[in-house]
C-alpha cells in the first residue's frame, strides 16, 4: 500500500491554514496584524493559500511606531498591492499628537510600549473581534502556554490562569460582547521552520534579513541601526559593519548582528548553528526576565 505521509512542514502548514479558515468562519470581523517581519510575511502566505483562488477575506493591520526601516514599508506596500488586501495603519504618532499617550524620553527611549494603546485603539475603532498574530511558542518561555485561540477580556488582558483548554483541533471562539481573541496560527512553528518554509515556498523577504553594510552603533551587546530616532551617548559612535537582522521591528530596539549570510539557504545554515535566540537581539526583552509576560498581560501582541 502507498504510504500517505505528510512532512512536518506540510503538517504545520495544514494546521495553520485550518486555523485561518476557522477564524474566517467563526468571527465576524477578523484582522491580521502585519508587522513586516518574516513571521507576518509567512502568515500572509498562509492566508493567501487558505482562501485561494479567492482573495484573503480580512484586512491587515500595521501598528506603526513611526520608527520604521524604509525597506519594511516599501516591502509592505508592494505585498499589499499584490495580495489585494486592505491595509489599515495604526500610528503611534497619532496617539502622541492627540495627547492620549506620552512618549518616553532620553537615552534608550522606545515606543515599544506605545504599540499597545495604538493596537487596542485600532481594534476598538474598527470593531475587530479576532486578530491574527505571528507569535510562536518557541520564542519565549511565557509563550509556551499560549493557545491558538487566545481569549482576551474587554480590557484586552490575557489571563494565563483563565485560558480555555484547547483539545484536538476544535477551537472555541465563542465570546461575549466586547471581548475578542488573538489567534496565533504559527504557534507550533520554530524559527527554523519559518525559514525553511520561506525557502521552500520561495517567499520574498525584506533585504534587512540578509547581510548588508550599514552604519550601526553597538549598545547592550547588539547593534542598532543609525537613525534619527537614536541619541548617541558621548562614548558611542556609528561604525560601518556587515550585519543582518533576525527580527524586524521598531528601529530603536531591533538589534542587528554581524553576519555574512546573504541568501535564505545561508540564513538557514546560520540559524542551525546559532547559539542565541532570535529575541536575544531585542533590547526590549532584556529589560526583565519576565518582561514578555508582563507585556502580554497588558495586551501586547
Amino acid at each position: 500500500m502507498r504510504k500517505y505521509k505528510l512532512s512536518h512542514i506540510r503538517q504545520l502548514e495544514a494546521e495553520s491554514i485550518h486555523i485561518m479558515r476557522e477564524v474566517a468562519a467563526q468571527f465576524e470581523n477578523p484582522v491580521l496584524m502585519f508587522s513586516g517581519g518574516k513571521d507576518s510575511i509567512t502568515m500572509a502566505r498562509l492566508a493567501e493559500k487558505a482562501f485561494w483562488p479567492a482573495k484573503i477575506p480580512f484586512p491587515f493591520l500595521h501598528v506603526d511606531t513611526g520608527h520604521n526601516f524604509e525597506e519594511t514599508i516599501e516591502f509592505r506596500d508592494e505585498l499589499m498591492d499584490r495580495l489585494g488586501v486592505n491595509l489599515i495603519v495604526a500610528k503611534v504618532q497619532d496617539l502622541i499628537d492627540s495627547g492620549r499617550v506620552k512618549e518616553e524620553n532620553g537615552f534608550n527611549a522606545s515606543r515599544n510600549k506605545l504599540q499597545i494603546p495604538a493596537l487596542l485603539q485600532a481594534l476598538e475603532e474598527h470593531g475587530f473581534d479576532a486578530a491574527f498574530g505571528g507569535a510562536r511558542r518557541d520564542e519565549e518561555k511565557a509563550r509556551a502556554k499560549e493557545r491558538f485561540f487566545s481569549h482576551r477580556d474587554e480590557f484586552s488582558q490575557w489571563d494565563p490562569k483563565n485560558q480555555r483548554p484547547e483539545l484536538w483541533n476544535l477551537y472555541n471562539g465563542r465570546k461575549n460582547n466586547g471581548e475578542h481573541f488573538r489567534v496565533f496560527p504559527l504557534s507550533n512553528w520554530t524559527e527554523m521552520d519559518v525559514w525553511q518554509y520561506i525557502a521552500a515556498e520561495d517567499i520574498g523577504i525584506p533585504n534587512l534579513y540578509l547581510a548588508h553594510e550599514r552604519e550601526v552603533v553597538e549598545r547592550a551587546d547588539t547593534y542598532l541601526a543609525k537613525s534619527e530616532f537614536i541619541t548617541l551617548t558621548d562614548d558611542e559612535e556609528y561604525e560601518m559593519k556587515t550585519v543582518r537582522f533576525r527580527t524586524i521591528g521598531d528601529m530603536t530596539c531591533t538589534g542587528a548582528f554581524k553576519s555574512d549570510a546573504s541568501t535564505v539557504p545561508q540564513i538557514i545554515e546560520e540559524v542551525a548553528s546559532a547559539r542565541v535566540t532570535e529575541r536575544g537581539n531585542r533590547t526590549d526583552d532584556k529589560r526583565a526576565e519576565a518582561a514578555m509576560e508582563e507585556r502580554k498581560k497588558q495586551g501586547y501582541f
Partner: protein
Amino acid sequence: MSTNNTDAKKYLDMDLLRFSTAGSVDDGKSTLIGRLLYDSKSIFDDQMEKIEESSRRKGDEYTNLALITDGLSAEREQGITIDVAYRYFSTPNRKFIIADTPGHVQYTRNMVTGASTSNLAVILVDARKGVIEQTCRHSFIASLLQIEHIVLCVNKMDLVDYSEERFKEIREEFRSFSSKLDVPDIHYIPISALYGDNVVEKSENMPWYGGSTLLYTLENVQVDSDYNHVDSRFPVQWVTRPQSDDYHDYRGYAGKVAGGVFKPGDEVIALPSGFTSTIDTVETYQKEEDEVYQPMSITMTLEDDIDISRGDMIAKPDNQPTVGQDIDMMVCWLNKEPLQANGKYAIKHTTKDARCIIKEVKYKVNINTLHRVEGDKNIGLNDIGRVQIRTTEPLFYDSYKQNRATGSLIIIDEYTNETVAAGMII
C-alpha cells in the same frame, strides 16, 4: 547552493512526532525535558545563561535543567507548572512537539488536553516509588485518548544503584496494570534524567539494559499508521467563492481531511443532504493534487452544483459516518462548574456547531482503578464518566476509537462560553 539545497530538501522530508509527558510532582519531568532539549542542542546560550543565573540565585549546586521548562512567573513563585506548555526540538530526521502536562493530582484536565493531539505519551515513574496511583491515571488517560504508544521511563535509577532488579520489578508492575488498557505499543526505559543516562546517550551505568535510549525510541517509533487512511471523511469548513471574473462559477469546499483519501473522479456523498456527485479537483494553493489525505488542508470542487455549507460532511457513498442525535460518549470534565444532569450545552464537533442536552450519566470511572464508581454519578472537574447526549441536529460521526477527528467533540457552557468537557464518542 547545491549542498544547501540538499539539506533544505532533507529538512522538508522530516516528519513530526507529537508527544505528551506526564509524571507526578518531583518525578523529574522538567529535568527530563530540560535534558532532552539541552542534549539535542535546542537550548540557546542566552537561555542557558538565564538558567544558570537563576540557579545561582536559588543556591542550587548544579545548573537546574528543570528551569528550562519553567514558564510563567506566578508559577515560578509557586514552583509548580499548572498548565499545558508546548516545547519544540528536532533531530535531523524528526521534529518533536512536546505537550508538557503537569503532574499535580487535580490536573487530569491538562493531561487530557495535552494527550488529545499526541501520538505518544512519555510517562515517568520514580524508581524508588515504582508504579503509583498517578502512573495508572496517566496511562489510563493515554489509553482513553487513543494514544498508541507509551514510553514508561523509570527515572532516578542513580538513586537505586542502577539496579536491574528494581527496573524489572517496576516493569512487571506496570505490565500487569496495563494489560487492562488499550495501548498496543509500550516501551520501558531505565533512565537518570539528572545525569543523562539512557536519555540521549546510552548509559554506562546500566550495561544490563539492551534496549534503546529515550531519544532513539522517540526518533524511530512509527506513527504514520496512527492516521485513518481508510474511511474517507471531509468536514466542510469554508466555502470558497471568489468574486472575480477568472473564477466566476468557481465553488470550492475548503477544509482539513479527517480520514481516508480523496481523488478526482471519486464518487462522493454530501451529508446531511444525501446528494451525490463526483470529485472534479482536489486542490492546494495553485495546484491540483492527484490525491489528498489526512491531515491535509485542501479545497475540493465537485462536478455538480449541490448545496453544501460549513458543518456538512463529504464522504463516500459506500463508507459513510454514522448519522445520529443520540450519542454515547466518555467525557472528561474540565471545568469548576460540575456537569448538570439534564443541562443544556453548546457543542463543537468537526466543523459543526450544535446544542445538546445531557440525557443520562451512565457511570463515573475511578481513574485510578478503572472501576465504575457505584452510586455516584456526579461529574465534576477532572472526573471521567460515560454520558449520553441528545443533539439538536444530527452529527456525522465515527467512534473515537476508529477516528480521533470525527469521534471527538467539545462541550461548551452557553453562558460563560468556556470549554467545559472533552467528549470521546463510543
